[in-house]
């Protein structure tokens, strides 16, 4: 129940950021946000694939909000990404818990620690991406080599994971 409440709060946080980017498009964003909230509540009650749709709608609302706001890079994007990830993970956690299964506090702490680690790593990566986007294109051989290595790394990681 606590995890479900926290997931809902995180979802509300994403929507709040989306709505405050540009107040003029709030009316256009409202239907999608409402539908996403409904999807989230239904997913929290019954599980299923609606959780993914809810997250997608919240993310889309945020992107629409920042696009409407203008060309400046939104510095809150890593926080929004973190909130979206927390929303998904906490909702899944609340669905995984079964009241009839006796589980000690240690198991809860372990999962909480794993989730915290993932969230922190996600925040760092997201912030890094935002920071690296500020590097101007064609700024030297080092950045070009780094970009190529990153591209190769992503492709290699994807290939390795697909093989598992």
């Amino acid at each position, binding site marked *: 129940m606590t995890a479900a409440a926290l997931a809902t709060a995180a979802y509300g946080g994403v929507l709040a950021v989306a709505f405050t980017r540009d107040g003029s498009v709030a009316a256009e964003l409202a239907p999608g946000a409402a539908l996403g909230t409904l999807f989230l509540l239904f997913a929290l009650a019954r*599980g*299923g*694939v609606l*959780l*993914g749709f809810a*997250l*997608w709608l919240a*993310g889309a609302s*945020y*992107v629409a909000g*920042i*696009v409407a706001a203008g060309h400046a*890079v*939104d510095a809150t*994007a*890593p926080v*929004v*990404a*973190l909130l*979206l*990830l927390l929303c*998904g*993970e906490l909702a*899944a*956690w609340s669905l*995984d818990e*079964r009241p*009839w*299964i*006796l*589980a*000690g506090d*240690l*198991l809860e702490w*372990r*999962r909480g620690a*794993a*989730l915290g680690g*993932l*969230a922190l*790593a*996600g*925040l760092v*990566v*997201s*912030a890094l*991406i*935002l920071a690296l*986007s500020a590097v101007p294109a064609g700024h030297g051989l080092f950045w070009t080599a780094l970009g190529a290595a990153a591209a190769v790394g992503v492709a290699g*990681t994807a290939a*390795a*994971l697909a093989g*598992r």
Partner: protein
Amino acid sequence: MTRFTSPRVSAYAALAASGLVAGLALGRVEPVALAAPFALALVAAAMAGREPHISARLSLERERAIEGDEVTATIELSTDAARLELLPVLPEELATEDGAAQAVHLRPKEERTIELTLRCERWGALSVGPLLVRARDPLAFRSWEAAVGEPQLLRVYPREETLRSLVAPLETQVFAGNQVSRVRGEGIEFADLRAWQPGDRIRRVNWRASALRGELWVNEQHPERNTDVVLFLDTFAEVRAEGRSTHDRAVRAAATLAHVYLQRKDRVALVGFGGYLSWILPQSGAKQLYAIADTLLTSDIVHSFAIRGVDVLPPRTLPPKALVLALTPLLDDRTAAALLDLRARGYDLIVVEVSPVEIVTPEPGSRLELPHRLWRLSREALRWRYEQVGVPVVLWRDDEPLAAPLEEVNAFRHLARPA
């Protein structure tokens, strides 16, 4: 083991892909930043995808118990999974205090023993296990499920009641036992006096009676003999509601009667008369008690449309002069007909009616009151049929001890001598 992947893995993949495509299409970095944590979560999910090692063994403290007993089940476990959920498959006749499902975490190479206290709520030959296990990675992206361990058999015998007296058969058999026979012969119980005849032993002479009459008179005694008892269990139908069942009570009564009659050195037979026919030939001794108890454990109500009479029973199951104690809820006409057939063949028959009436009593003022009353009238009519042929039918209500109907039979036999 069967592997399952959380549905949010595919959702995260779609979100990550959407973010990257949106970043390219819009020429902005924010969608890519949104996608990054989800892509990272996918990497974490893939890296935690190794199948865990699980070793579990289920054992029971003992193989036999009595209704109401508590039996300890032990689970010996070792695993390297981040979270392991255990669920022993338990029959509904067994209950646990806090539920049987548990989640544990063990360090690599650590072994743990988990004890479960099982309370035996109902008799039966019960199968405990196997263990259903579900292992998960730390963030539950992947899970593995399997059934491990062999099922263990637990025999829960019916709870017995205390009986101070039993129904004595009208006729005894030829072997020595604890039942005082109606016939006269060598024994302990005084029966009568008669005039001396050539061949009578001198120690049987009653000197006081001889002195009074002026000729020799001798004592006669009732010999102590054993009896044959057939427990006739009706398994055609039952009434079961809210944890109460006519069949359960009948089985408990049969177990009690078998125990007490066998203690008296009588021979006891068992007939399960219903959709599934079962029988045990009359024998005496502790071995027979276990045979009857084991047969009772597997007795169940099997619905059948086959027309059955007592002809289908092996003749040795129903020895001559046997006392037939029928335990029946009187719900099926085939049982009623078979019992009347037994009476017509001269068996000493007693019908203990395991009353289903209290179990299905309708609410006062409901529409079911009239059919319920008609049903009770039809049952009374059936009882009257039995009484017309000299068969005592005693009602055993849900809240009464078994001794009550047996005392009623004894009273009936004192007042009315069966034909």
